[in-house]
């Protein structure tokens, strides 16, 4: 309607006044026309946008279509949708007409999103300076988009030229932004629906949905987990009520409760016994909920179901276990306990009340160590030990204590417990048992008393038997050279053999008693394995030759490499084994084999072609006092303790002993010791057998002071030493010995230990003390005693003795002890311990 006037048109004359009215009307009409045209354009643009949304195949495709339509309507070069990012004041370009325009926005653009804005020239602002994809744009308009009632987004149109968007463009953009908000809401809803569908379909929980408006509450949807749980396919169950799963009768309480909830369209949690399609039963934990929609309080009934069978069965099993333990706890004298990570009682079974003398409820929550132990010094030490164990989270094994209650103080309770932890490894407390071990404790004490009595008895017997035995064997030794006839010497040798036998039996009994009491301590030292073999063969060579037996020895491996072990005990074991082999082999051969091929063990085999052992007797050979063949034992002597001692000694050394035998064929015993090689140290070799003293009177002219309270021993020693050339001063006790020593100088002192009054130990201490004052030369002192245990020898050495000779002894053994103490080539006296 509007156009540039031509000259002719403008020349037309009109009445000014009427023209004014006409012009007014025309202007008004023109304004209306312009408004209408603008409205039409806007409406067309909006319709185009709406059409773009509507024709799109999906909500996801609608937004790009809408943006393209917007660009066309506004003559823009690009359109984008900004989305506000929570918290950071940033925005992100979520949708754009060109993909390179998508991505992170800026704080400046985020600030623009709140109101409609028309930027004439964005180059003035510098906002796109660091944003190459947007650098080409100059003109920009933005209109906020409301999503869910909040201005979460904005619609932007961009133009390459500045100042191209007028106010009407901004107004139109605002209308399109409203549509865009709807499109975005639909898109988000679509995404949520897709997500929800995927979650439900993929859920491991079985989900079934019924139409709550349907009186029958028939199923309209089940997810794959429902199919997996029940075995029924979707097609089989849709349009059915869930009662096909039920196994319980209709009037079962839980079914009734479920029916009521469904009828009332209420939520609830139910545990139902259901059956799968294949007939297998299962426990169905069903969670029912009523889901409303707009205007309808309960549109759908949604049931999530879990197979609770495992849990139920585990719970029942646990309950049975608890019942079992509770029943046992009720009838048992042993009581069960548990404490938490703070070491405070959380559980005590009934039996605890009787033992602790307090009701359980009074004890729960109290500290274990406070309750259990009393206040005296011993209790405090026990408490510290118990607390130390618990702090270290160590097991409590056989911890005994006296209950603090006065009425229970005479009782003894034994506590056992083990720490337990949570699944993440955190300490959670202790659990255990406790028992009244008062009787056992008493019995143990009595046994210990008896044991001590036995040991004392053995020590006393040992001393009382060894002393006269010393006299017997010593005098036999002295008498034998004096006898005139061979027959007389033979009879004397019979006495000597019997005496040696008695000495052997006594030694075995005492060894066994010490092993039983655990009073044998190993003394490991470096040794050469070959030396052991040499020593044993030397010890038995003469008797083997006398019997006409053949002895084979075999040594394999690095026998020159030292080992670390108690060589004396090994010799003791082999002594018994070789002794038995010799004893029980009337004729034939023996062998002694050492295998040192392994660096971590020694194996020694002793075998014979002797009388062997019957198969039914093999199991008893290691028992005490067992004599397989009483006639042989009587023939060769012995108390039947040798193998018992071997087994205990081998066990003490951590080894193994295996005996194989066949009646009338022979016996083989294999002993294995876990004794390892030593790396570099040169071992101290076993002391070789002593060479005999030079000359028949090796003590010629030496003055010897002898003190012993047994007359027969004094007599024997006097004869023995005199025969060796010594000049003896014999006294009956320690006081007399001290007086004699003070009066004159002696070359040796031979003192018994157990003497009345001043005993041997105090005698030597006194002598050494006076020697230290410088008034006397040092007297070499030898203890001659039946009490010659290693700890006793240490005591004697510490007191000042130079050597110890155990009773009974031979003259040779006595000289072995004396000789090193005689003045040697250097003229000095030196000490030597046997």
């Amino acid at each position, binding site marked *: *309607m*509007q156009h540039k006037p031509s000259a002719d048109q403008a*020349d037309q*004359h009109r009445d000014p006044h009427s023209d004014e009215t006409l012009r007014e009307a*025309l202007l008004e009409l*023109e304004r209306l026309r312009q408004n209408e045209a603008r409205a039409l354009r806007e409406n067309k643009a909006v319709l185009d946008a709406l059409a773009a949304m509507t024709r799109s195949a999906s909500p996801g495709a609608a937004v790009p279509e809408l943006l393209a339509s917007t660009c066309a309507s506004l003559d823009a070069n690009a359109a984008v949708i900004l989305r506000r990012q929570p918290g950071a004041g940033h925005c992100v370009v979520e949708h754009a007409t060109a993909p390179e325009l998508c991505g992170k926005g800026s704080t400046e653009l985020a600030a623009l999103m709140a109101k409609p804005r*028309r930027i004439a020239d964005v180059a003035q602002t510098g906002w796109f300076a660091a944003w190459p994809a947007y650098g080409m744009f100059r003109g920009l308009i933005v209109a906020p988009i409301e999503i869910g009632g909040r201005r979460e987004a904005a619609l932007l149109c961009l133009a390459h030229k500045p*100042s191209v*968007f007028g106010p009407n463009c901004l107004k139109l953009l605002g209308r399109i932004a409203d549509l865009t908000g709807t499109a975005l809401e639909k898109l988000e809803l679509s995404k949520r629906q897709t997500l929800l569908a995927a979650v439900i379909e993929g859920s491991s929980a079985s989900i079934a949905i019924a139409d709550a408006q349907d009186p029958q509450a028939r199923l309209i949807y089940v997810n794959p987990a429902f199919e997996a749980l029940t075995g029924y396919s979707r097609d089989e169950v849709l349009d059915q009520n869930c009662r096909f799963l039920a196994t319980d009768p209709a009037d079962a309480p839980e079914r009734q409760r479920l029916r009521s909830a469904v009828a009332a369209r209420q939520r609830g949690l139910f545990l139902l016994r259901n059956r799968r399609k294949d007939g297998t039963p299962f426990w169905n934990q069903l969670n029912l909920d009523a889901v409303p929609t707009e205007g309808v309080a309960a549109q759908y009934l949604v049931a999530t179901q879990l197979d609770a069978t495992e849990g139920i069965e585990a719970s029942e099993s646990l309950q049975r276990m608890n019942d079992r333990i509770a029943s046992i706890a009720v009838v048992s004298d042993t009581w069960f306990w548990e404490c938490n990570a703070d070491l405070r009682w959380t559980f005590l079974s009934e039996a605890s009340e009787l033992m602790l003398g307090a009701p359980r409820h009074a004890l729960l929550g109290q500290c274990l160590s406070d309750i259990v132990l009393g206040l005296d010094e011993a209790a405090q030490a026990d408490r510290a030990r118990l607390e130390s164990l618990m702090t270290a989270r160590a097991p409590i094994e056989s911890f005994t204590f006296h209950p603090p209650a006065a009425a229970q103080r005479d009782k003894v309770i034994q506590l056992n417990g083990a720490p337990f932890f949570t699944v993440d490894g955190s300490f959670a407390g202790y659990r255990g048992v406790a028992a009244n071990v008062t009787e056992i404790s008493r019995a143990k004490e009595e046994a210990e008393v008896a044991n001590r009595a036995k040991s004392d008895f053995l020590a006393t017997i040992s001393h009382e038997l060894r002393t006269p035995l010393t006299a017997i064997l010593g005098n036999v030794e002295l008498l034998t050279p004096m006898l005139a006839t061979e027959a007389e010497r033979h009879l004397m040798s019979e006495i000597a053999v019997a005496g040696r036998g008695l000495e052997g039996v006594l030694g075995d009994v005492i060894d066994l008693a010490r092993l039983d009491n655990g009073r044998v301590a190993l003394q490991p030292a470096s040794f050469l394995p070959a030396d052991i073999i040499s020593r044993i063969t030397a010890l038995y060579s003469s008797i083997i030759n006398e019997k006409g037996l053949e002895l084979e020895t075999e040594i394999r491996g690095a026998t020159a490499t030292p080992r670390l072990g108690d060589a004396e005990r090994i010799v003791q074991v082999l002594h018994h084994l070789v002794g038995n082999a010799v004893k029980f082999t009337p004729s034939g051969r023996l062998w002694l084999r050492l295998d040192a091929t392994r660096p971590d063990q020694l194996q020694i085999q002793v075998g014979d072609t002797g009388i062997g052992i019957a198969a039914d007797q093999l199991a008893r050979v290691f028992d005490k006092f067992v004599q397989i063949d009483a006639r042989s034992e009587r023939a060769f002597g012995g108390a039947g303790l040798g193998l018992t001692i071997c087994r205990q000694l081998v066990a003490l050394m951590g080894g193994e002993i295996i005996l194989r035998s066949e009646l009338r064929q022979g016996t083989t015993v294999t002993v294995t010791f876990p004794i390892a090689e030593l790396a570099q140290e040169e071992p101290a070799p076993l002391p070789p057998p002593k060479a005999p003293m030079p000359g028949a009177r090796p003590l010629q002219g030496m003055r010897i002071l002898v003190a012993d309270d047994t007359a027969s021993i004094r007599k024997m020693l006097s004869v023995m030493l005199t025969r060796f050339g010594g000049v003896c001063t014999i006294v009956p006790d320690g006081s007399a010995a001290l007086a004699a020593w003070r009066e004159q100088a002696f070359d040796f002192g031979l003192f018994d230990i157990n003497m009345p009054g001043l005993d041997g130990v105090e005698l030597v201490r006194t002598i050494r003390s006076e020697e230290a004052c410088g008034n006397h030369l040092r007297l070499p002192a030898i203890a001659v005693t039946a009490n010659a245990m290693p700890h006793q020898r240490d005591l004697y050495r510490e007191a000042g003795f130079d050597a110890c000779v155990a009773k009974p002894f031979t003259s040779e053994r006595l000289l072995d002890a004396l000789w090193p103490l005689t003045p040697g080539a250097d003229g000095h006296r030196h000490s030597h311990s046997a």
Partner: protein
Amino acid sequence: MRTEQLLCRDLDTRTIAARALERFSGTPDWIWVQFSAGYDTYALRRALVEAFPETALHGASSCLGSMTNDGASVGPGGAVGLLAFWDTEGDFGTVMVPFGEDPKQSAREAAIAAAEAAGRQGEAPDIIWVSAVPGCEESIIAGIEDFVGSETPIYGGSAADDDVSGHWSAFDSAGETRAGLVVSALFPSGTIGHAFQSGYAPAGPSATVTAAAGRRLEALDGRPARAVFDDWTGGQVVIGPPDTAASILASSTWSPLGRPDTMVADIPFFLLLHPAQAEADGAITLFADVAPGDRLHLMAGGPDGLTARAARTVTLAMEAGGISRNDLAGALVIFCGGSMLAMQSGMSEVARQVDTALGGSPFLGGFTFGEQGRTISGQNCHGNLMISAVVFARS
């Protein structure tokens, strides 16, 4: 948004500032000032800046005075009119720049700076309000449109004095100018409406410009423009010997020239050109540009038409913005100074009718030597003897 007006007659600048401070409670966001040329621009600016240091000030000289709801003050004593705006959700920025060597470029830069001063860097305002000293308004419009685009309404009026002697000026908070312009970028929170009108109709005669240079109309249909105009007006406008220059500003008020701007239903609508001086060389100096080829018509109007025209223009502006009287916050009104000089005693009635049309909402009217606004053709134009109104809604 809210506004408040103040009209001060015969008062010194300090008193005016004090009265304004009293009337305008709180800190206004923007104040438009129209003052008669007899005032010391510097003193007035300083006094107002002291009273309103945080407010954007937009001031320009107005012919003989100004008008508000309190009437029109156009007497010899001088008057200062003020209209203050408070708008917490809106933004206002004002910048004064001298013309320099390139008024168009200066105007562009002023528009950019005004948007930045409003805190809206780079953004096209809802409306530009401009006060330039007369001479190059067309270039100024072109320069502003370079930034804000042709779709943004550009309204305002050229600074005026009392006798066309060049004692016009304009100022912002920072300074004043006698050869420059003041541009305000307005981003009100509420809706705006605007209208740009003239109260004249073609009287019959027309001719084609055959020679012209800027604002000098030299020849029409090959004849000297003075002579043609004199013929058209029957010798009633151009008084004096033809070889002597004569001011015809007042006498040509009811017989201006018009250039067709647009046709509506084959009826032309004109942009008016006010002859200011008949030159001795036979040219006529106008208050707007002409170019050879323009078809010029003799236009006719009268006081009665103009009296009602201002109120009508305000009403049209309200209709254009869809703003009801109840929702009005205030209005800016521009009335041609030349028209005002011809109707001087009747301006009170004009003010009253405008006040009635606005329902009592505050307004300020300035009397300018050139008017800028948006015609029915949808273009920003500079014209003479025009009336414009920009109305603001509260929300």
